[in-house]
């Protein structure tokens, strides 16, 4: 077995027990690993209607086969579970070095079941697997947890090779907006997962190992990777933008195109973009680049130690943070956004979900639907201090902030204005306005994981025109396009690759790397087929959990209120018009259900008899 280690650790926290299992080659071939494998296990092993916070839910950490091999950007570890925020399937992507270290521990996957009696830490250090009592870690922030664990090791050099993922106070308190932190980076797409980890009383997982990952054709692999590194290095968008500013380079661009939302998506143009552009960013944070394992792009920006305010702590805000915690809450001061982002990291809150929730609360307050008394908090658009205070209280469930912590949808409903929730399937939208980005809008409604661009990077072509010149406002050809990008992303995630290299490379460029590493002879189309299989399995999970066409809709604002001003003035989302076409292209019926005949062509079976053709 190349790339894969073929081994899985199954931990049952209720029984305080674990066992090692083999993963069959057949499963690997069919689902690749990473996200695909995790989805398959979750689909087979849990009842999709289960309460996400009950011991019956499972939490799966799974690295892809290319992780740890040196394949460019082969770093990603996926976390799969049933989300505590939406009730759909959830998949977070862990960045940094945890995924690779998991492979060096001789494991592809950890399956966590049950619930520990008291807080524990799972420690997998040089083949010694221990479920350690973790009471003294409970209540600690994520960086405190990491430091405490590392200083508890007798050998300080071993501590340097140890990688840790943990939840913060938000996850412990079962706040459904909680996320997971590893290596000082918040996972992306992790809203609702931190709470699941908290419900299992699992505070952290530490890994360190010295197993090797083997590669089928070492010589060819080294050649191919060398070429790809050089290609990425000369791709203008990567070397000039992504490597310098991280995703924050998109801020100015999206603002110019009327995509960047302001004040809970009430408008999509912001005239003082100088305040939030890349220059402002580097002067506020003095950026320092950090890369995930084996990544030549290094899009992650830390603050520099010489920065007087942040002193090297925390991440500089990304596009997501600037959009969701900043502008969408009306906050244009990057320092405040940076502090808010850091609090999210320390407390283990998801910036997009938490930002979206606060933006909703702010709109409720702006419209006079929320009195100061009802939440005992000031939440005014544009007020950074309000934001910072709310985040801390939310994470610790202190006072009335408990109610905001339930998420934007619950809050909007509680105050009788569900239309002010800007999200899909209970998950707030990432800061891309679906009115001025039609493909993204269609992806938002159809995504198995809620409205997150992470599962289909349509803006590569709709905004940046990298592979194709697509008009962001047209709906023509978008259903095919969205399906294609969704499937490709499923493949990338399952292999354990980051998606950013596709800003400088074509998917085809990666195929020789995949094959020389795994000893396979895939063609790009074969892999897309696997992507399609994974997407359909995720859909089946959600259908069985009770989701369907009725949930594939955007908030009314995007359909009925045209963008008022700015470059995309007059646009509305036409995602609903494209939905039938999309279902059709996917091979689904008008309710968005794959039929059993179609599933057979994908070598899938639905587990109940409901999905007739």
């Amino acid at each position, binding site marked *: 077995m*190349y790339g894969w280690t073929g081994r899985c650790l199954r931990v049952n926290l209720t029984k305080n027990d674990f066992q090692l299992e083999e993963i069959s080659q057949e499963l690997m071939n069919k689902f690749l690993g990473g996200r695909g494998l995790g989805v398959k296990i979750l689909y087979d092993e849990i009842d999709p209607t289960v309460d996400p916070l009950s011991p019956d839910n499972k939490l799966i950490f799974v690295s892809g086969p290319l992780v*740890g*091999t*040196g394949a460019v950007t082969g770093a990603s570890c996926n976390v799969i579970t049933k989300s505590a925020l939406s009730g759909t399937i959830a998949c977070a992507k862990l960045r940094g*070095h945890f995924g*690779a270290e998991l492979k*060096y521990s001789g494991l592809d996957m950890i399956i966590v079941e049950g619930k520990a009696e008291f807080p524990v830490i799972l420690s997998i250090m040089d083949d010694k697997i221990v479920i350690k009592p973790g009471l003294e870690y409970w209540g600690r922030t994520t960086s405190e947890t990491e430091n405490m664990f590392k200083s508890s090791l007798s*050998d300080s*050099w071993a501590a*340097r*090779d140890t990688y840790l993922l943990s939840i913060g106070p938000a996850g412990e308190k079962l706040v459904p907006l909680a996320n997971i932190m590893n290596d000082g980076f918040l996972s992306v797409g992790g809203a609702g997962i931190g709470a699941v980890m908290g419900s299992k009383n699992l505070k952290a997982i530490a890994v360190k190992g*010295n*197993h*090797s*990952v*083997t*590669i*089928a*054709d*070492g*010589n060819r*692999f*080294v050649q191919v*990777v*060398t070429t790809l*590194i050089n290609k*990425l*290095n000369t791709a203008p968008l990567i070397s000039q933008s992504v490597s310098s500013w991280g995703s924050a380079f998109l801020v100015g661009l999206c603002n110019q195109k009327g995509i960047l939302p302001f004040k809970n998506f009430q408008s999509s143009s912001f005239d003082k973009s100088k305040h939030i552009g890349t220059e402002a960013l580097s002067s506020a944070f003095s950026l*320092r*680049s*950090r*890369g*995930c*394992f*084996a*990544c*030549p*792009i*290094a899009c992650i920006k*830390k*603050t*520099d*130690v*010489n920065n007087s305010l942040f002193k*090297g*702590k925390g991440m500089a805000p990304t596009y997501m943070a600037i959009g969701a915690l900043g502008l969408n809450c009306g906050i244009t001061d990057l320092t405040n956004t940076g502090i808010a982002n850091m609090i999210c990291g320390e407390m283990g809150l998801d910036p997009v979900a938490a930002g979206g929730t606060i933006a909703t609360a702010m709109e409720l307050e702006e419209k006079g639907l929320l009195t100061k008394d009802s939440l005992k908090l000031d939440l005014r658009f544009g007020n950074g201090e309000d934001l910072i205070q709310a985040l801390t209280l939310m994470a610790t469930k202190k006072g009335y902030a408990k109610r905001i912590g339930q998420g934007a949808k619950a809050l909007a409903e509680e105050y009788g204005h569900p239309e002010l929730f800007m999200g899909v399937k209970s998950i707030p939208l990432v800061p891309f306005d679906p009115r001025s980005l039609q493909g993204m809008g269609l992806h938002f409604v159809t995504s198995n994981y809620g409205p997150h661009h992470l599962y289909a990077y349509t803006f590569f072509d709709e905004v940046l025109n990298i592979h194709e010149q697509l008009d962001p406002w047209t709906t023509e050809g978008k259903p095919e396009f969205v399906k294609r990008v969704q499937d490709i992303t499923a493949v990338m995630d399952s292999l354990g690759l980051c998606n950013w290299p596709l800003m400088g490379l074509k998917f085809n460029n990666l195929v020789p790397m995949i094959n020389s590493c795994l000893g396979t002879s895939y063609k790009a189309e074969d892999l897309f087929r696997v992507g399609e299989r994974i997407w359909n399995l995720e859909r089946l999970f959600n259908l069985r959990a009770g989701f369907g066409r009725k949930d594939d809709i955007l908030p009314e604002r995007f359909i009925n209120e045209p963008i008022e001003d700015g470059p995309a003035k007059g646009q509305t989302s036409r995602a609903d018009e494209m939905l039938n076409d999309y279902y059709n292209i996917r091979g689904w019926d008008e309710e968005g259900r794959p039929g059993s005949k179609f599933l057979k062509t994908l070598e899938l079976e639905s587990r109940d008899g409901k999905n007739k053709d």
Partner: protein
Amino acid sequence: MARIKIDHTKCTGCRLCEIACSLNHVGGVANPRRARIRVFREGSICFPTIAGPFVDAACTSKNDLIIGDQTYNMCLICRASCPEKPFFIEAETGFPLKCDFCGIPPSPSCVRWCNSGALELIED
């Protein structure tokens, strides 16, 4: 003489150098513990360090390494493998590892895969 210059301010901590070294010395095997270069992380700074000679006793006196207003452990950039710092020793064999300036000239393997400019081949 050709040498590898290390600029820790540019290092992103991606560890492609470690894997390049491992793959180049043990065919088809990716394992940072078999690399003759390791990237040590301390706070937000990464120090790439290339394996030098093996010594069987630790230093008796050490200097402090001061960068900005922070003080670091000198061992972080020391190239030796010693009883104080159990790196650059092959786990299975206990064999000490030392950089042999490998790869296809002109660039050593680690330099070739380092995209940030932290590792650079210089002549002096």
